[in-house]
Every structure is written in structure tokens, then in C-alpha cells.
């Protein structure tokens, strides 16, 4: 049901945005991941979704005999998922390094607004 997916993507985006508005670094990271998931669902919806007909040609034929799911969003999302893993791991390591340096999860501890620079 498409409307369910529409609801899901809206909620994923809302939760993601809410989390990146927090002060915690970990929440920022989780928020980014949720936004990524929301985007995947959005892209997925852009192709017409279909049930029970993956974009794989039947063994005995050379072309599709029936309707099939749109392969392009799938190819896009596949790469997006893998890339997001790389992004997440890089962000996690950054987070780890930051935590090791400032000993805080609070984003506000990271910045020292330098008035004299203004």
C-alpha cells in the first residue's frame, strides 16, 4: 500500500530532522541515518511499486513476460545503502575521535564562538 510508505517516509524524515536538532552527537548520527532511510523510501516510491514481481527475467525467456518492479530506483537505493554504511562508519569514527578529545557528547562543547574573529 503506497499510502503506508508515504506515512513511513514522512515519519522517518520527521524523526531524522528532530534528531539532528538535538545537542547530542550520537543523536545527530542517528538522525542522519534516519534521513537516509527516509530518502531510500522516497526514491523507492518514485518508481511504481509492485508486489511479487521482482525485476528478474524468467529463466526460460529472454524478455519480461509480465509487469515487473522498476529496476532503476532499486539500483539507486542499492548503492545508496552501501554508501550510507561507509558514511555512517566514517561518522562514527569521527564521533569516537571527538569524544576521545573533548570527553563530551555535547555538540555545544565543541564550538568556542570566537567573538574576536567577528
Amino acid at each position: 500500500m503506497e499510502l503506508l510508505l508515504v506515512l513511513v517516509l514522512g515519519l522517518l524524515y520527521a524523526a531524522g530532522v528532530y534528531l539532528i536538532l538535538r545537542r547530542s552527537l550520537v543523536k545527530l548520527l542517528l538522525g542522519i541515518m534516519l534521513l537516509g532511510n527516509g530518502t531510500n523510501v522516497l526514491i523507492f516510491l518514485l518508481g511504481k511499486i509492485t508486489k511479487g514481481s521482482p525485476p528478474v527475467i524468467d529463466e526460460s525467456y529472454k524478455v519480461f513476460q509480465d509487469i515487473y518492479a522498476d529496476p532503476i530506483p532499486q539500483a539507486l537505493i542499492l548503492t545508496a545503502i552501501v554508501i550510507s554504511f561507509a558514511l555512517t562508519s566514517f561518522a562514527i569514527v569521527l564521533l569516537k575521535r571527538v569524544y576521545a578529545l573533548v570527553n563530551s557528547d555535547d555538540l555545544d562543547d565543541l564550538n568556542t564562538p570566537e567573538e574576536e574573529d567577528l
Partner: protein
Amino acid sequence: MKSAILQTATRYLLPILLLFSFFLLLRGHYFPGGGFVGGLVASIAFVLHSLANGTASTMKILGYKPISLIPIGLAISTVSIMLPMLFNLPPMTGLWFEEPIPVIGMIGSALFFDLGVYLVVIGVVLTILFTIALDE
């Protein structure tokens, strides 16, 4: 997370999962699967092993640092893309052997490209996870 059951299980799971991952890679052109999924399953096999037996012993099985898989994989992919240029075809043209090979099916340059992807994915995932794990 050192439990005897898990350690014993992974001893058998590792080769089976690797075989499965290779299977996913080879049939990727015809059925769901392919280099990305295959590489990820293979990484999971190693990660599972490292969780049970410690990262050091998994590294011993691997023999090389996983990071060295990255350039190998990239090189295989690049070569498979450039290969058609040897036959005076534009790069990225698909090349295929005439006759299918038993079990695997048709073999072409796309499969070699996917093999490169497979290796890069294993290299990337294991590099990331093992580097972090060894840092703890």
C-alpha cells in the same frame, strides 16, 4: 563474547558463508545477488568469526590486511572496463565467452567487474570494522 559454541559454530560457518557469498556473486547476473551483496555476506562471515574468536585470529586466517583487498578489487574492476579497448572496442563494452561454463553459466567482463566490487566491499567493510575493533 567468547563462547565455545559460537567458536565451534563459526569454524564451520565461515567456509559455508564464504561459499554462499561466492555463489551470490556468480549468479548475480541472473538471480538476486551480485558483488555488493556477496561482498557483504562474506564480510559478515569474517566479522562473525572475529566476534567469536577475536579479531587477531581472524586476521591470521585472512593472511593479509583487509585494506590490501581494496586496490586489488579496484584494479580488477578497472581492467575489466578497459579490456574491450584491447579488441578495439570502446571501454565498458561487455565481452562474453561464446560457450557457457558448467555451474557458473555465461562468463563475461561484467562478472570480473562484479568480482572487483566484491573484493572492494570485503576490503572496505573489514578495514573499517577491524580497525575500529583493534583500537578498543
